[in-house]
């Protein structure tokens, strides 16, 4: 036990001495959190649309005003003489609303008046949102106009856990986990690869310290770094993003310690297997960044990944921790909802540690 602490004290001293890297490792997660969680949002507002009103009646102008009043769209002027598609091709608008001749007359006569909405679907998700929002605007327009054909069944939609539908609250836990998966493990792999590169690992082999003591000491030191990053990142999470702890915090706390162990072990494992700093960074950027970014449901639901590669996400450690953080900060499901995910984080961390230990042992035998 004493040797483990001595080892991690040595490691922490080295980290603190390289204060420039440490400052980066503590400041960058926060910068990343603030920047990326607002940048990756999918919920668009203030989309430019153009309107071609071929009717120009009071009814059609009322209908356009309904679109003008929404925060989702802003109407851009466009001459009637120019082809409306030209606005989409030149990226000046995302959709075109075309109100045909006789729109007002048909409405007054009680006929259905068709309105054409051309949507630029090169971004499929935004196109679906445009269709959904404009449907809502049209329905609200009818209700206000006092159409006697009231809908017999009304849908009352409640948004749970995130009533404002803020995408920041959805993305922030994801980026929080991404930052925590990248930086501690980057530092750990660099420190471990350095031992291999500078051959100081040989001193460890000839000393009386055992492989477990050496590895645990290193892992412990980088767990401290991870927890420090975690605590620092909680500040913007609770203030800027307006998140809080919903329900029982114990699964979150246990999972955080296990996740710190998991990412530190991953870094140590990579550094032990690849005794070359540049190559180790490549491996971490693949495992810590690309896998966690792509296959953990950070931005898009995991269910959308084709089955051929979806199974990989079963092994992606970040996936479980993202679910735990979202549950702790938004849903508050507590242990019944998350025990299995907490266990998976611990299990994957254990596997990383075991591989790191095994690599150490094999290297020791070879040298």
């Amino acid at each position: 036990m004493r040797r483990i602490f001595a080892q991690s004290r040595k490691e922490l001293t080295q980290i603190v001495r390289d204060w420039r890297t440490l400052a980066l490792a503590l400041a960058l997660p926060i910068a990343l959190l603030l920047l990326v969680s607002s940048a990756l949002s999918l919920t668009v507002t203030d989309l430019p649309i153009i309107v071609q009103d071929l009717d120009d009646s009071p009814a059609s102008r009322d209908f356009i005003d309904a679109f003008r009043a929404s925060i989702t769209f802003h109407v851009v002027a466009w001459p009637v003489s120019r082809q409306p598609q030209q606005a989409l091709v030149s990226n000046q608008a995302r959709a075109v609303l075309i109100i045909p001749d006789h729109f007002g007359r048909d409405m007054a006569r009680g006929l259905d008046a068709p309105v054409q909405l051309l949507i630029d679907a090169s971004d499929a998700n935004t196109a679906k949102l445009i269709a959904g929002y404009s449907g809502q605007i049209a329905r609200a327009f009818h209700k206000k106009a006092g159409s006697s054909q009231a809908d017999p069944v009304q849908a009352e939609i409640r948004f749970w856990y995130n009533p404002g539908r803020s995408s920041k609250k959805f993305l922030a836990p994801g980026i929080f986990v991404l930052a925590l998966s990248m930086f501690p493990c980057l530092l750990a792999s660099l420190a471990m690869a350095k031992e291999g590169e500078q051959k100081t690992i040989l001193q460890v082999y000839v000393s009386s310290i055992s492989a477990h003591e050496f590895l645990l000491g290193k892992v412990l030191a980088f767990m401290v770094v991870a927890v420090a990053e975690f605590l620092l990142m909680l500040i913007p999470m609770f203030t800027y993003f307006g998140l809080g702890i919903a329900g029982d915090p114990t699964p979150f706390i246990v999972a955080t310690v296990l996740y710190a162990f998991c990412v530190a072990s991953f870094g140590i494992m990579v550094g032990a297997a690849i005794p070359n700093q540049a190559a180790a960074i490549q491996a971490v950027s693949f495992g810590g960044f690309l896998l966690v970014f792509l296959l953990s449901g950070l931005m898009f639901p995991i269910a959308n990944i084709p089955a051929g590669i979806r199974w990989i996400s079963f092994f992606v450690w970040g996936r479980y921790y993202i679910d735990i953080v979202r549950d702790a900060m938004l849903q508050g499901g507590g242990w019944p909802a998350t025990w299995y995910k907490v266990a998976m984080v611990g299990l994957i961390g254990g596997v990383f540690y075991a591989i790191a230990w095994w690599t150490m042992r094999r290297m020791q035998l070879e040298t």
Partner: protein
Amino acid sequence: MVPVFNYRVGALLGKEFGQILRDRRLALVLILPPTLQLLLLGFALSATVTNIHLGAVDDSRTEESRELVATLSESKSFRLVRYYASIDQLSGAIGRGEVDAGVVIPYDYDKDLQRGRITTVQFLLNAINANTAAISQGYAEGVIETYNAGLRAGGLHASFEPIGAQDDSHQGQATLHPAYLYNPGLKDSWFIVTGVLGMLLILNSCLVASAAMVKEREAGTMEQLLMSPAANSEIIIAKVAPLFVLLFMTAILGSAVMKLAFGVPFHGKLPLVLSAAALCILSGISIGTVNSTFAKSAGQAQLMAFFINPPLASTSGALSPVEAMPKWLQSFTVVNPIHHFAVIARGSMLKGSGFADLWPNFLGLLAITLVLGSVSVWRFRKQLS
């Protein structure tokens, strides 16, 4: 500095190409991963919302209410998982993630309809994922609208006769007919891969360039190059040209992957996209070169690239629409080469836009490349002297 292609440049080019070709692994590392990443990103990043798992609480337990649930689950958007006895059970199931959405039908549903009264059906949506919630809301309202139309037309078992309906006060409704242009199948991958190609070109050229520059310095052969009669600009041209050729092959391969694996239509002119790709590669190489002049070792150079690239990529609009970013971030996309490439690729490939529509983005990309290029030459010279 006038880039003259004389025998000195030729000799240096021969040396650089020879080095790369001898290191076959490097050529492989340069071309293969971007292609694989393009495939992975294109397949894995999809915001499609289908098969929303639906739980139902049916307090009415009549044919009318079952018909409503059937209408919901008949659409591809919702899939009925099971019925729950009470709202408490349903909310528990949403909390545990068993279902993503719930529908609650009141006990007097059929009676209200028979008597011609308006009835309200409650939808509970798990809104943690704001985008999925917004799209589910659209789906739910669409299904209810269809159901209402069916009630009026009398095609359903349930029927509805509004009280006091007078046909003379009847007013028509404006019906929206959305048409999805340029991507009628609403494929998410078309949006992702057209942006991601630019992102991968920048990231990889940045990594490769800084590795190549640092390698010469680490090996201590930079002095030998300096002592040769070649001018600095000639050294730079010879260094950049082979990387550029290899990365350009990646761009061509990437375009082929887009066409073959994702079925992206090439409505516009391919040379337009490829010249934008070439500018992207040049600015990526410039970023990498500047980066390498600050780094002492290959490890440090990579570490710095690690810090520059994720923010650059995520604020570019390659993965998410620019309109969804905060206003202050939107203005930064003007100086982001990935953003300009994404606009050009999407415009040309999906919409068939020509140079007349895309020139502002070309101008932006060209300006960024020139600025980054001159900064990198300046830093490189400063480092040499």
